[in-house]
Structures are given as structure tokens and as C-alpha cells.
């Protein structure tokens, strides 16, 4: 569906993205993950035909973006970082304008608007001026705009940035609802989002792809340490000694009743660790993984050696 070959973009001397290669199959939901300034937005802008690449090729359904821009653009629904809404329009009028702009045939316009409103749950505000809506609603109007032509491909650039947790949850639910109906490429720097929504993830940093796989495979490939936060009631020193002597425990730190334990998951399973703590009679009150493994992988992959030091 989307194939990106040797894509490079330079802004003057600065290289924004360098030799990107990836393909996205029909119906997939792919997360485009990277720290700020990694080149996510640049890549998306090139895929949508907003700007041209310095070199390389992007094909949508076999059509080159640069050679057949009109054909490609009618297949893509794009939500930029800032939702592209005309604040002086009503939600309904805006969607109708976008539908016409996207060349939706005349008799389908109303049906498509209803579809977009339904998916984004905007029916209540369809007769309101966009400038009077909250940021979360504006974001949803932006998504509705991307959906209104029922495009086979949806490209969403950080769809949940700047929203409150409830709105974030709603937008995620919305994207999950759209899964299967559209091929979705979604950029974000929030990991839990990728975990919640995406089937596959492309991790990009400093303009280069450093990992591209399904989430499970990425976690499996990287053997990393896992960290737990443990609260106990008593016998801190005994527990400390017990833990330090166990195989697979890489480090123990504690302050008062609180312990931070680093574990190599290959050598020591979580089950054995909890058993050891309980058996020590320290009175376990809390046990939680502090850094989820994906987050760790992400930080390890996206930081250079120098950053880590």
C-alpha cells in the first residue's frame, strides 16, 4: 500500500531523513515512533505530497507521489500536528468543504459526513463554530476531516499530543475502531499509545530507521534489564542481602522501605523474584515494574553512546 524507498530529505546542509526504506501493507496499523526532531513529520509530509523529497521514492498503491500527486492525494486522509481547521466555519460546513475538496462525489457527501461524525462522535457539536470548540474537539474535527473522504490510507501526525488523559483515551479508542477499515500510519513519541494501538512499529531517530518490527519481536530481540519498585515493611537489610546474592539480580538500591531492583529477565523470572521477597519475611506491600520494557528499548535504541554516559 505504502512503499518508501531510499527516501532522503535535506534542509540545506541539515539532513532531516536519511535513506529510509519501509513498506506498509493494506489494513495495517503502523506506529511511527521517535524522539522529537527524528524526522517523523518530514516523512509524513513527503508521503502526503505536501513536499518533495531530496531523493528517493514514495509509492502509494503503485503510484509515485511526485508523478501522480492528484491520484495519490485522493487516497490519503492526513491529520497534521495542528488540526487544519478553519476556525470561522461550522463543523458541518467544514466537513462538507473538505469532502468537496477531496473530490467526494456529490451524492455521497452527506453520507460521508455522517460517517465521519459518527466515528468521531461529533454529532452534538456539528452546528457549532469550530473556534468555540475545545482543543480535544478541534482535534476530533481534524480527524473527521481526514476521514470524510473515506480514504484507504490515514496518516495521523501525533493525534493525541496536548490532550487531556480522557481525550487521549477517546482518540485511541477511535483509532482502534478504525482499525481494519483503513491502513493507518500514526506518528507519536508516546509509547503506551503504540502499545495500545499499533500492530507494527517503526522506530526512527536522527532520520534513520533503527528498528522495524512487531512489538513482541522488538521486545524479544532486545535482552534488556527490567526494573521493579518494591515496598516492604521490615527487615530491609536481610532482604537486601538475599536479593544481592540471587542469580539474575543486577543491582539493588534502597532508601528506607523502598527498593529498586534491576533484574535480567532471562535469568530470573518475576515469579521467582516475588517468591524470594515474600519468603524473606520482609512484608511485601507493593511490587511494580517501574519502567516498562518497551520504554527501555526505546531509550536504548534512540540514545547514542554519548547520551547514555
Amino acid at each position, binding site marked *: 500500500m505504502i512503499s518508501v524507498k531510499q527516501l532522503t530529505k535535506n534542509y540545506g546542509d541539515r539532513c532531516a531523513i536519511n535513506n529510509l526504506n519501509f513498506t506498509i501493507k493494506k489494513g495495517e496499523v503502523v506506529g511511527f515512533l521517535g524522539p522529537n526532531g527524528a524526522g517523523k513529520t518530514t516523512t509524513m509530509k513527503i508521503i502526503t*505530497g505536501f513536499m518533495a523529497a531530496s531523493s528517493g521514492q514514495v509509492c502509494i498503491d503503485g503510484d509515485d507521489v511526485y508523478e501522480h500527486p492528484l491520484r495519490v*492525494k485522493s487516497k490519503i486522509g492526513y491529520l*497534521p500536528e*495542528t488540526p*487544519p*481547521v478553519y476556525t*470561522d466555519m461550522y463543523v458541518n460546513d467544514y466537513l462538507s468543504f473538505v469532502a468537496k*475538496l*477531496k473530490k467526494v462525489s456529490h451524492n455521497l457527501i452527506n453520507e460521508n459526513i455522517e460517517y465521519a461524525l459518527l466515528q468521531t462522535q461529533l454529532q452534538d457539536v456539528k452546528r457549532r463554530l469550530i473556534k468555540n470548540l475545545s482543543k480535544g474537539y478541534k482535534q476530533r474535527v481534524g480527524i473527521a476531516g481526514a476521514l470524510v473522504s473515506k480514504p484507504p490510507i490515514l496518516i495521523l501526525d501525533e493525534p493525541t499530543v496536548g490532550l487531556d488523559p480522557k481525550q487521549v483515551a477517546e482518540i485511541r479508542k477511535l483509532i482502534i475502531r478504525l482499525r481494519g477499515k483503513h491502513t493507518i500510519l500514526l506518528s507519536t513519541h508516546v509509547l503506551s499509545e503504540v502499545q495500545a494501538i499499533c500492530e507494527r512499529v517503526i522506530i526512527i531517530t536522527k532520520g534513520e530507521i533503527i528498528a522495524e518490527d512487531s512489538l513482541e519481536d522488538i521486545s524479544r530481540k532486545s535482552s534488556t534489564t527490567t526494573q521493579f519498585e518494591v515496598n516492604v515493611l521490615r527487615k530491609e537489610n536481610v532482604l537486601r542481602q538475599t536479593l544481592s546474592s540471587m542469580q539474575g539480580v543486577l543491582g539493588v538500591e534502597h532508601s528506607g522501605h523502598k527498593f529498586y531492583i534491576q533484574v535480567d529477565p532471562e535469568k530470573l523470572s518475576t515469579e521467582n523474584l516475588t517468591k524470594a521477597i515474600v519468603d524473606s519475611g520482609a512484608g511485601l506491600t507493593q511490587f511494580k515494574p517501574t519502567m516498562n520494557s518497551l520504554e527501555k528499548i526505546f531509550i536504548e535504541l534512540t540514545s547514542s553512546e554519548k547520551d547514555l554516559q
Partner: protein
Amino acid sequence: MKSMINIMMRDFKGLFFTPMFYFIASLCAFLLSYSYVRNLIDFAYSSGVPSAGIKYSLHQIVVVSHISITNIILIFAVPAITMKLISEEKKSRTYDLLLTSPVTSTQIVAGKFFGGLCASLFIVFISFLYPLGSLLFADIDLGLLLSSYIGISLVCAAYVAIGLFCSSLSSSIIASVIMGVVFNLALWFLSQGTVYSESDLLVSIMDHMSIGDHLFSFVKGALKFSSIVYFISACCLFVFLSGRVIESSRWR
């Protein structure tokens, strides 16, 4: 064509149904009312004074100066109306929507040009109401009046094209207004420079490029083909340039 009309309608509504437009239109109406009444009074005085056997008509005194006042108002009002056309899109990022939609840059600028033209012609319409009202009780040459207003409408179109181009250059609406006004004034004053020029060629070139000379021929009742071509080509040139500016963001 459909896409162009779609963009044109949106831009026309976006420009027309705003408090800003009402403010500009009422300001223009205020200035025109003031000057028109003054012109009428001038005419009333001059018709009582015998001036070496020459009798000036209502058109020569009132309509001519009304048209030139309208032109001066348009120099400032049109950039203030058209400033939003592209600058605002760039600022609010709706530009991204236009550029990622299946429309060509020609359709975008043509739609915006006609949208801006419809809104700006409303100011010309306001100005037209004054001589139209005078027709009820005075004798104004209708042919001359119409040719004058065809002329000022074409001038308005040229200003809209220039305003559109200036708007495409910047994402700041203030910068695009200032550029637009300076451009319009430059075209208006171009023929003034010919006074000090010794080269006949230069004089004729600058005369031809100046808006004032072309407008004057319309006011005199001459629908000159060269003037019509001048205005249409000015519109096409600046709309084309705006299209290039939009296109440039795709290969920058």
C-alpha cells in the same frame, strides 16, 4: 472547475462574513459619503459660475473625482481584504489541508482570486450606489458611468491579484497588507516618474504600466482594448506568481 468554485465559495464566505469586512466596508462608505457630498456641492457652486463658456457636466466634476476617490480607497482596502487569503491559511495550518488535497495549485489560486474579487467588488458596488442614487434626480451620462465602473472593477481585480500574491509571500497578515499597499501605490504612481525622464521609450513603457492612465481612458468613456488586455494580463501575472509561490513549497 468544481474544486475551484468550492475554494472560491469558502474564501468568499471567509472574507465576507467577518466583522473585519463590515468594518472596512463601513469605513469606505463613510469616506465615500463625505467626498461625494463635497463633490456635489462643488458642482453646484461651479455650475453657477460662468467659466469662459465651458460647461462642465456632472460626470466630469462629480463622477470623475468619485472614481478617483474610490480608486484611492481600493488601494488600501483591497490589501486589507485579501491579506487573509493565503497568509491566514499558512498561519492556521489549513495550508497543509489544501496542499495535501487532490487539487492543483492553479485551482487553489484561481479559487482564492475569484473569492477575493467577489468580496472586494462589494466595495466597488458600495461606491456605485452613490452615482446610481444621483441618477434619480440628476442627469448623468449612463454610458460614461458604466464604462467608468467597468474600469474601476478591472482596477479592483488587479489589486486583488496583487493582494493575493503579497498574501502568498508571508504568513504574517500585517506584512502582506503593507506589501500590497506599497505595490498598489507603486503602480498608481508609476507614471509620475515619467516627468523627469528623457527617454521616450521609457516614458511610454511607464505610462503603459501605470494603472492611472488606463483607468483614465475608461473614465473618459473609451473601452480601449489595450487597457482591457493590460488589466487582464496583470491579473493573470500575479495569480500565476501566487501559484508558483504555492507550488514552491512542494519542492523547497
